């Protein structure tokens, strides 16, 4: 389940399509994916409450919608959108959904800090995926960021391991480690 947390202005564009695609591919390189999820790959998109959150939710729904035909590890992708209310509710959602990943939307970090967020993801063994490098530095596992010429995958090795994820070495070769 992908929790979409809207932490900033919402906008669905090709960049989001790419990022969504990359996020799903990153999940494919998790060797522990089958142990963490059920028959579906649930991606929880967590967005902040209010209008900002609605736009973010819509943005990621469109982005992931274009990638909906994909399968990860032979499993279909299911997008779950959640407006943040409280950490407890979010924690319960993550536990109930057996989510594979949680996407941190723009503006979410104003409602809940990244460390507090990752405490929830680590408890439920959900991969936290951000859109900023700072989020990875603060404790998120992975972020897809736009570089000068291309998109870049950054990861926090400790966070990745804490969330029960074990990435393939091939992915790690491509990604850049931060936050050690």
């Amino acid at each position: 389940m992908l929790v979409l947390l809207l932490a900033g202005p919402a906008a669905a564009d090709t960049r989001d399509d790419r990022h969504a695609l990359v996020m799903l591919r990153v999940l494919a390189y998790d060797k522990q994916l089958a142990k963490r999820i059920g028959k579906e790959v649930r991606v929880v998109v967590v967005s902040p409450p209010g209008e900002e959150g609605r736009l973010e939710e819509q943005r990621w729904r469109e982005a992931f919608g274009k990638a909906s035909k994909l399968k990860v590890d032979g499993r279909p992708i299911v997008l779950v959108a959640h407006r943040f209310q409280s950490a407890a509710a979010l924690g319960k959602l993550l536990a109930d959904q057996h989510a594979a990943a949680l996407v941190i939307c723009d503006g979410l970090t104003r409602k809940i800090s990244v460390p507090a967020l990752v405490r929830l993801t680590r408890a439920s063994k959900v991969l936290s995926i951000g859109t900023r490098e700072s989020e990875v530095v603060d404790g998120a596992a992975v972020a897809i960021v736009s570089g000068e010429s291309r998109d870049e995958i950054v990861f926090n090795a400790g966070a990745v391991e804490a969330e029960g994820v074990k990435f393939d070495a091939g992915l790690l070769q491509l990604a850049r480690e931060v936050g050690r």
Partner: protein
Amino acid sequence: MTRGRPTRRRIPLRTRMSLLFGTLVCGVALFMIGFFPQRMAEQARISTELRAKTVTQVISTAVGPALEFDDADNAKRILGWLEKTPDAQFAVIVKSDGTQFAAWRPQHVPARLPSAPTTLDGSTLITSAPVIGRAGGAGRLYIGQSLARMIADREAARRTVLTASLVVLLIGLAACIVIATKLVRPFEKLTRIANEIARGTKPPKIVAVDEGPEVEQMTTALGTMLDRLAHANSQLVEASRHAGMAEVATGVLHNVGNILTSVNVGIESFAERVDAMPDERVRRTSELLADACAHGPPDPAKVTAAVKYLAAIAAHLRSERMSLLADLTLLRGHVDHVKRVISMQNTYARTGGVTEQVELQKLVDDALALACPDPKRHEIELVSRVTPDCILTIDRHRVLQILVNLLANAKDAVVAAPTRRISLDATVEDHTLAVTVADTGVGIPQDSLVRIFQAGFTTKRKGHGYGLHSSATAAEQLGGTLRCHSPAPGQGATFVLRVPLDRKVES
């Protein structure tokens, strides 16, 4: 016209062995030249292909994430690992849509990439492998590798094998000749010794040769064979001498036996006639005269009668004396013949023999007298027809011996037959004496005719089987022939002796 069989050229053993070993060595060398370079080249190609495929597989796996995440830089970095592969010429990753994703040394990438996983394009080996990401991304990696080094190595190996093969060939051929010579030498020695034995040259003592146990055994065995051969030869000579002596003795016994029969008859007749001498009557006549004179003057009539009686006795004695002298002469002739026979057998008179002038009629009469001295006693009809007044220069004793044998056999044959007739015809035609002795006796079976002249063969119960053999031998020694013919058993037999005459017949 018959075509003769071609003479097979005989190749010496040494040459044959050298050729055999040389052929083997050449075969090995040719095998090395033909097999090893090709095999090595094949192995090198397989090894190169396998190595190239392995490298391609490894790199294709490594570049999978880069292709999946569209990280061309990372892909190029991974392709750059091929810098450490000296034979690598280029590498390129092509996406599933056909576009080039990343390349290493793109200037060497050919315009058309092959579809097969492994392709040999001249001196370049191009291998390819699929690039598959965990999330489904796909493409294909192509790596080109130069085969120049492999080709160079192959050529070097071929030269090495060729050189080694030539060396092996030369050394092998030399070794073949040496080995063949060494192996054949003792056999050549033994062959020379065997040839000397065959020529009759007494070979020197065979010295044992140290050429291996087999040759040594052969040499020892040959020496033993030579000793045994010499011993057997001496035994054979001794046996031949004894056999010859036996043959001489048999011949003497047989021929002398024939003559002794007539000598016995002559002696018997002589004894009877001596026994019939009128010595008793002479004694009685002298007693009568003495008695007549004792009582005065004898009666003239009685004296006259006594004188007439004595005169008659004297005439009888004179006649008997002449007859006895003739018989003695005949006996002397027989004894002389016996001596002659013994002399002939002792000296093996093959080409010898005394030729003398002989009257043919007398010769025949002598033969009849010797062989059949008393034909009337056996009721045998003897008929002889001889060319009259014919004098021959011939070996009398040898011809007489033959005729006596033939007549004696004829006599033995007719004795048991219902008709007892022996005929002898002696003629001279074209400088050849032809004597035919025919009888009406028991005849000779056809299967015995071919063996009748063999030594030891006889149809008589008490025969020695030597008479006809010696007669045939004697005829041969005279340069003539002795033939036999018999229609069937019970129909008699005919023997024909033909002897060439050396000088003109006088008649």
